[in-house]
């Protein structure tokens, strides 16, 4: 029964979702909202599983002085500091003369978010610029026909996106200038390729979903 019950639940819920898409009559029209709400509630409770697991693993790492244990200490300290500030501000906000929420502007929690978390997040995002350059440097080489085509397409698109591309080709009629070539590459062959991939993805999604709903694919339950 350990495996049959989850498979039955998957089948019933999957079928309900599919049916609800085609039947607007109540209560079918509410299925999607109900199931989504239930998932959100379960996920909200489940986040404690992850948080406690993180704390446990970090604490064990510190206790046994395994490699990189200072990072584990940093995780625990950061976690406790943020959660403490959140609780304190939340408590203060409830009993303040003008009630406020723990994350409202002006609170210590908001200060930590704006001055610690956001710069860190922006830093990671900024790394993308450098990684794009290094990945492009490796990828755009004329090793074979496909790579050469990729290189040429990248060349036209990159030049077409900056003003110098049109300056170089300013002697040509407008529709033959670099920016128009770049636009054509993005709008025609690139879009066609993306749509083809998306059609394949959609078919793969349907096939995988059908396998899971019918109970043919059971790996996610922990076995064949």
């Amino acid at each position, binding site marked *: 029964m350990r495996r049959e019950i989850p498979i039955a639940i998957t089948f019933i819920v999957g079928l309900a979702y599919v049916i609800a898409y*085609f039947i*607007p009559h109540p209560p079918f029209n509410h299925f999607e909202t109900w199931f989504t709400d239930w998932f959100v509630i379960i996920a909200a409770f*489940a*986040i404690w599983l992850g948080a406690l697991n*993180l704390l446990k693993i970090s604490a064990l790492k510190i206790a046994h002085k395994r490699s990189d244990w200072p990072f584990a200490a940093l995780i625990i300290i950061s976690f406790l500091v943020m959660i403490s500030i959140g609780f304190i501000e939340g408590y203060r906000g409830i009993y303040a003369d003008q009630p406020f929420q723990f994350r409202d502007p002006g609170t210590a929690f908001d200060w930590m978010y704006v001055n610690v978390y956001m710069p860190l997040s922006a830093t990671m995002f900024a790394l993308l610029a450098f990684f794009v350059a290094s*990945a492009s440097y490796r990828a755009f080489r004329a090793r074979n026909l496909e790579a050469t085509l990729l290189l040429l397409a990248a060349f036209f698109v990159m030049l077409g996106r900056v003003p110098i591309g049109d300056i170089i080709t300013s002697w040509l009629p407008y529709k033959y200038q670099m920016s128009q070539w770049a636009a054509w590459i993005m709008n025609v062959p690139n879009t066609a390729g993306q749509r083809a991939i998306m059609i394949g993805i959609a078919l*793969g999604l*349907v096939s995988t979903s059908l396998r899971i709903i019918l109970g043919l694919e059971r790996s*996610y339950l922990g076995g064949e």
Partner: protein
Amino acid sequence: MTVTVLRLLFTLLVSVLLFFLFPHNLTAQDDTSPDSLIVPVEEVDTAFMAQQTPQAPFNIVAKDRPNDAGEAIIVSWDLSPDDYSGGKVKEYLILRADSPEGPFEELGNTTQGLSEFSDNQAERGKQYYYKIAALNYARVNGGRTWHITSESAVAGPVHAYAQWFNTGRLNIFIGIFILSGAITYFIFASKSGKKFYIRKIAGIEEVENAVGRATEMGRSIYYVPGINDMDDVQTLASINILGRVARIAAGNDTRIDVPVSRSMVMVTAREIVKESYSKVGRPDAFQEDQVRYLTDDQFGYAAAIDGLFVREKPAAIFLIGAFFAESLIMAETGNSIGAIQIAGTAMPSQLPFFVAACDYTLIGEEMFAASAYLSREPKLLGSIKGQDVGKALFLVAIIIGVLLETFGVTLFGMEFSDIFRAR
């Protein structure tokens, strides 16, 4: 000097006296209170008002909106003859009542030229009556406005009711039916012993080699199942592949680490990896911290993964699942430490990054087929074949559609693309 000072003082005194003695308007007054805007019709010249009265709209039709849960009624009408640019009709007011005698309440309005309104406040099963009033208004001296309406005949009774089938999605229903039928047919055909040819997928063929490489180098494997939760089919597909990869790793006695971004993915992945170790007879080799939760935050997760890659230097990295902007950060870091990387995602925007940074990439449907491909189970391979039938049908439809659209040919009065559009 004394005279000058006296003159200045006198001027100042006169200015102050003038300021307080005479009325002045330092701020613009705007008599725009709502009550002052509407002038009773009787106050305006009667003959003039008669001239400004618009003709009422006609042929009011109120009917239930199709393909919904019985929450709306569509009211349509023929435009008033005075509805033209510069004409007497400025707006239409939609009035609704529970009985033909009223009282009618105003539901909303439309501008001139529009002849349809959707009443989204209708209660299912309740009867309503509708009238449409053509509204004319203007401004007269003093900034005030007058308005006058002409009401149509009453239309009704009409009630909203729910439909049992959304006919606007019939095309999708037929498509799903055909595709599911094809998949199911080939599953059963495969179960009965029929063999199907499945082309080699380079990324999947290399899974064993990647695990073997990690074993030989004495380093670990990292499996990153993406950043979405278990409600995403990509994550489910990734978890399915994880089971296969974990079994190969367990069989080779190679450590596999699975850092995850969602708690429920952690719970599921842990069960799967544990089961994989048990299946190869090594349950004692599994450690719970192999599958661990990091953070839900996108860039926090990317930073943590990068840190783990740089410090622990795995020999093989699998990036399979749903990824967003963090994909290239992870893939490039993995590349920088010299690991063999096999990636797979169904996010079209991230595929170019994986193709550029990873050794092998499973593109879209290949990721969904990977689990079946690795298991070699007949019923799962049959589903891949059914998927291909769907692809073939799409190919034929695209060719027909391109030809019809190119030559401007319509089918049953519709453009070919409309046949596939969901409503």
